[in-house]
């Protein structure tokens, strides 16, 4: 039998992925545990409904909603559980909200690989401000696989700030993000990724700047340790007068491998698109500087990585 009741140990996972050491009151919340709804609450302005097929939820945010938060974390604690979930976000015109998602897997390894594939589709109206925070984290001896897909349709003059981070413990991830930006829409993406041991991570991102005056900024920072491997493929397509700036930075350590495939395409002479990518080991002078302040080599390395990922 699936256990979907929240336990004390679950709160640790929820804190790691959604900064919620306890279930907050007065906010719209949907906690999914082991494929089942564990907690749900809604507000006057934010409704959460289970889809008819039971494999996901619709989050409906009323036009003009201001300053509210929505929490929709997912945790998997049963070893060997595999699930695919599709969540749709419908954000009304003028709404200003923060959405906290994220997935935590605790896999003892007793029943093989645990995996979560989430498809999040955002239909964002005009003049909205949406902050979307997504953290992925795994613990336990078993394999943890996460394959998030995110589709964003951003209305006129709306802003979408996306902060996605994979903290530790995810054996394999393939991330897919596609976005379509209307007139004067702005999208800021901050991606942070750490892989270790023999983990594998792949991130594909494609943003179409379709509206005049739309803009995009992607800042991706990653650290690859041990024998892990990472591959980034961000693509910006400028179809009109627009601005896009993509920056991918990676620190490579030990016997890890990192690849970056920049792709930019301008289909208008008024599109301005820049891509920067850098991969390198920790700079020796940085280590020496911190050691000269009294830090050990290991402490210096940790401070450099912490700053880089902040």
């Amino acid at each position, binding site marked *: 039998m699936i256990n979907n009741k929240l336990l004390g140990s679950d709160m640790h996972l929820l804190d790691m992925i959604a900064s919620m050491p306890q279930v907050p009151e007065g906010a719209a919340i949907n906690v999914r545990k082991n494929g089942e709804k564990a907690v749900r609450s809604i507000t006057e302005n934010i409704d959460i409904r289970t889809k008819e097929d039971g494999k996901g939820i619709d989050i409906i945010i009323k036009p003009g909603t201001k300053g509210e938060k929505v929490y929709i974390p997912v945790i998997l604690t049963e070893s060997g559980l595999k699930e695919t979930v599709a969540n749709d976000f419908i954000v009304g015109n003028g709404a200003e909200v923060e959405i906290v998602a994220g997935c935590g897997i605790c896999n003892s390894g007793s029943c093989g690989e645990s995996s979560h594939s989430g498809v999040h589709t955002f239909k964002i109206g005009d003049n909205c401000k949406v902050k979307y925070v997504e953290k992925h984290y795994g613990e336990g001896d078993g394999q943890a696989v996460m394959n998030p897909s995110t589709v964003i349709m951003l209305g006129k003059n709306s802003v979408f700030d996306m902060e996605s981070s994979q903290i530790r413990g995810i054996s394999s991830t393939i991330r897919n993000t596609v976005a379509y930006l209307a007139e004067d829409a702005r999208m800021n993406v901050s991606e942070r990724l750490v892989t270790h041991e023999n983990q594998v991570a792949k991130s594909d991102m494609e943003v179409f700047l379709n509206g005049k005056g739309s803009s995009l900024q992607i800042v991706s920072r990653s650290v690859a340790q041990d024998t892990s491997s990472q591959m980034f493929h961000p693509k910006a397509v400028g179809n009109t007068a627009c601005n896009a700036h993509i920056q991918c930075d990676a620190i490579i350590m030990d016997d890890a491998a990192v690849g970056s495939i920049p792709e930019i395409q301008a289909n208008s002479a008024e599109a301005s698109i820049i891509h920067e990518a850098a991969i390198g080991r920790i700079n020796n002078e940085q280590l*020496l500087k911190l050691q*000269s*302040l*009294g830090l050990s080599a290991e402490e210096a390395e940790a401070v450099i990585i*912490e*700053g880089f990922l902040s």
Partner: protein
Amino acid sequence: MLIFDSVRYTAPDGETDIIKDLSLEVKDGEILVVTGPNGGGKSTLARLAMGIIKPTAGKITLDGMDITELDITERAKLGVGYAFQAPPRFKGLTVKRLLALAAGDEISDSECCKYLSRVGLCAADYLDRALDATLSGGELKRIEVASLLIRSLKVAIYDEPEAGIDIWSFNMLVNAFSTMGKEKSGSLMIISHQERLIQTADRIAIVAEGKLKDIGTKNEIMPKLSEIFCRECIKTRN
């Protein structure tokens, strides 16, 4: 007191002696400016003092303790500080965090402000800024100095603090060194070619061709400086 006792440093090629059996003392509370022609071994001496490189022969002692084999971290903990000629930049590491690491503890905004003000920076504008490419060379250099000021050091080593900074930052540095000299809180070893910095010295050491050519008080050495530099220039030209 920091003492170099017959220190030799041979380049990794195993053939070129960059420092040749050099002996030198940095006395308690003094400002010792080490000057001399380019390529004479001054910066190597500073790096040897901090432990970034190790001597091929000879001994380095701090207050009587042999620190020759100690690494950078161990020397830092004993109170040796080093300001880099070209301080490295860090993505994401803020000025406040660097100063806290230098102080060895959490540090209040007002404490940070005190030290940043001493190097002429308006603290409120800088505390949360990252030490990355958005800072100019002069700003970075001033923060580097602040990261030494905030520590209680027995010996602070500055490797060409004038390199790569604008005239305004330079004036601030001269003032900061003059103040430190008056406070007599620790010894300063400044590697410099700059006359105004040399003027802040209690004693001046001239290092050329890996050797200590001369050492003495400011009044003794200043008159000889132009003569020595000219001689070195002619030698280089020939």
